[in-house]
C-alpha cells in the first residue's frame, strides 16, 4: 500500500528526515516510535503533504502512485487521513458543514454521489454513538474552544466518517487520559480490515496496548534505527530511548502521568 524509499526532507534549512525506508502493506498497523525531535511528526506531515516540508530525495509510492506528486486534498481523496497532533481551531466554520464538504469531496473523487443532508445526518449519528461524541460539540465551529481531549476525539470521529484506506495518527495519544485513549484505539481498531492500513506515530508504548501493531519502528535523528515486532515497543518502555544516539538521556518511553492513573 505504502512504500517509502530513502526519504529525505527538510524544513527551512534543517534536514529532518535523513533517509527513511518503510513499507506498509494492506491490513497492517505500523507503529513509529522515537524520542522528541527524531522526525516522527515530520514523517507524518510529509505523507499528508504539509506544504512547509520539502522532500529533497527519495520516493513515496502509495497504491502504485507517486504520492509526492499529489496535493494534500488529492491525497485525502485517495484515502490518506492524518490525525493531527495539534488539531486546528477554525472559528466560523461549522464542524458538520466542514465534515460534509470533506466527505462529499472524497465521494465525488471516487465517483460516488454526494450524500444529502438526511443521509449525512444518519451517518454522523451512527459514528457518534460509536465514539461517544457529543452532539453539542459537532454543532460548534471546528475545534473551536474544544479541550485537548475533545480535539483528539474529533480527529478520530472525522476518521470514522471518512473511512480512510491509510490512517496516519500523529501522537494522537499525547495528553489523553486512559478513557480517551481507549476511544482513540477503538476508532482505529474499528477501521482495521484487510484492505486498510494505519501508521501510528507515538512517543509512548501505552497506546500500543490497545492498538496492537504488526510492526514497530524506532526513529532516531531522521532514520529508522530499529524495526521489530510488538516486543520492541515493550523493550523501549523498559529501557527508555537513552540508548539511542541523539536522544536525551534516559528519556522515558512511558508516560508517567498515565502510569500514575492506571
Amino acid at each position: 500500500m505504502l512504500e517509502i524509499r530513502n526519504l529525505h526532507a527538510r524544513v527551512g534549512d534543517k534536514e529532518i528526515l535523513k533517509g527513511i525506508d518503510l513499507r506498509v502493506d494492506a491490513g497492517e498497523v505500523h507503529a513509529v516510535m522515537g524520542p522528541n525531535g527524531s522526525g516522527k511528526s515530520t514523517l507524518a506531515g510529509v505523507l499528508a503533504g504539509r506544504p512547509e516540508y520539502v522532500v529533497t530525495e527519495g520516493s513515496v509510492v502509495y497504491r502504485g502512485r507517486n504520492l509526492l506528486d499529489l496535493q494534500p486534498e488529492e491525497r485525502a481523496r485517495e484515502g490518506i487521513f492524518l490525525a493531527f497532533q495539534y488539531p486546528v481551531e477554525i472559528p466560523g466554520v461549522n464542524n458538520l458543514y466542514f465534515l460534509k464538504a470533506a466527505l462529499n469531496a472524497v465521494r465525488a473523487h471516487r465517483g460516488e454521489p454526494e450524500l444529502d443532508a438526511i443521509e449525512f445526518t444518519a451517518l454522523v449519528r451512527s459514528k457518534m454513538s460509536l465514539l461517544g461524541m457529543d452532539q453539542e460539540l459537532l454543532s460548534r465551529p471546528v475545534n473551536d474552544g474544544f479541550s485537548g481531549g475533545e480535539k483528539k476525539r474529533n480527529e478520530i470521529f472525522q476518521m470514522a466518517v471518512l473511512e480512510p484506506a491509510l490512517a496516519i495518527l500523529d501522537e494522537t495519544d499525547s495528553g489523553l487520559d486512559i478513557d480517551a485513549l481507549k476511544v482513540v484505539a477503538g476508532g482505529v481498531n474499528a477501521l482495521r480490515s484487510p484492505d486498510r492500513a494505519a501508521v501510528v506515530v507515538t512517543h509512548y508504548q501505552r497506546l500500543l496496548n490497545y492498538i496492537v501493531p504488526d510492526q514497530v519502528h524506532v526513529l532516531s535523528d531522521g532514520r529508522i534505527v530499529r524495526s521489530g515486532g510488538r516486543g520492541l515497543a515493550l523493550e523501549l518502555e523498559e529501557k527508555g530511548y537513552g540508548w539511542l544516539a541523539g536522544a536525551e538521556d534516559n528519556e522515558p518511553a512511558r508516560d508517567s502521568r498515565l502510569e500514575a492513573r492506571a
Partner: protein
Amino acid sequence: MATKASAYLSMVERAQGSHAGEPAWLRDLRGSALAEFRRAGFPTTRHEDWRFTNVAPIGDTPFVEPPPAEVSPDEVARVLVPGVAGPVLVFVDGRFAGKLSTPAPPSGGVTLRPLADALLERPAVLEAHLGRYATVADRPFAALNTASFEDGAIVEVADAAVVEGAIQVVFLSTVTPAPAVSHPRVLVLLGRHSQARVVETFAGLGPTRGLTNAVSEFVLDEGAWLDHVRLQREPGSAFHVGRAQFHVGRAARVSSTALALGGLIARLDTVAVLAGEGADATLNGLYLADGVRLVDNHTDIDHAVPHGTSRQLYKGILDGRARGVFNGRVRVRPDAQKTDARQTNKTLLLSDDAQVNTKPQLEIFADDVKCTHGATVGQLSAEALFYLRARGIGEQDARAMLVRAFAADVTGRIGLDPLRADIDRRLASMLPGGRVAEVVA
C-alpha cells in the same frame, strides 16, 4: 473655496429655484449648508478625516442631475430582501417612486411619507428634527446633501408600536448617459418604547458611474429599539458617500450593521450619539473591496451621558490592490461615567498589494469607564488551510470557506433571519472562490 466645488455649487444654486416654495426654516437650513460647502469645498487628504481617502475623482467628475428614469417592479423585487414583511419605500436616482413603493398598513403604528408630503402634513416634526443631528459643520458631503436633497423618506414609528417585519428603504441608481449625482435623505423617528427594524439598500441597476451622497438620521426616543442594516452594494464603478447618524435616547438601544460591498470609492460615516442615560449602541460593519477600489469606514460614538454602552465590530476583506480605511472614534465626555465601550477591527488581506489603514481614536475625559479597542490585520491561516485540504477539501473551496467564516462573524449577528440568509447568499457569490454554503445542523 476649492475650485473643484464650483461645478457642484452652480448645480446646487440652480436647484435653489425648486426649493423656493419650501418653508423658511428649511430654506435657512439649506442656505447654511450651502454656505458651509462653499467655505469648505471638497475635502483633501490634508484633512485629518480624509487622510487616506482621496475624493479628487469625485470632485473632478462633472456629475449631472439624473434624467427621469423608468424602473420596473421586477427590478425592484430583485433588490428587496425576500420573505420580509413590512412597508417599502423606493427611490430611483434620489427621487421617490410612489408606484414602486408599498405603503405601511394604517394600523401598524408606522407612517412613511415622502419629504413633500411630510412638509405639508408634519411641518413641526420635520422642523424639530431634520438636519438637527447630521449637522454640516466640517462635513462637506453632509452639507452638499442638505443643500441639495430633492426628496427623502420620513418614517415615524408611534410610541410603543412594534413594527412587524422590517421597513425597507431602497435607493436605486440607474445607468445614465453622463454620471449623475443623487442626494438621498432619510429621517427615521422612533417613538418611546417603540421597536422597528430598518433596512436601507443602495444598489445600482447596471454599471452606474454616478455619485450617491446619502444622509440618514435616526432618532430613538426613550426606550426605543432599532435594528438597522445598511446594505451598500452599488457597482464597483460607482461613487458612494454616506452618513448614518443615530441619536440614542435614554435606555434606547440601536444595533446597526453596515455592509459596504460596492463602489469604486465608498466612504461611510456612522455616528451614534448616546444622548440619554443607559443608551446602548452596537455598530458592526463588514467591508469588501477588490481591484483598485477604496472603502472607508469612519465611526464616531459620542458617550455624552453616564451609563452608556457601545460595541463595535468591523471586519474587512481586501483583495487585489484594494485599500481599506477604518477610523473608530470613541468620545467619552467628562460626565459620562460608567461608560462601557469596546471596539474591534479586523481586516483580512487576500493579496500582497491590498492594504488597510486602521486607527482607533479614543478621547476619554471621564475616569470611571471601561474602554477597550483592538485591531488586527492578517492573512488566511496557513494551518487552517492545510487542515481543510488534508480532509479532501480543494484549495479554492478551503479558502472560500475560511473567508466566508471571517465574514460570518459580522453577518451572523444580523437579527432578521431572511435578511441574514439573503446577505450570506449574496456574499457567497461575491467572495473569492464563492460557492453557496449549505449549513447542516
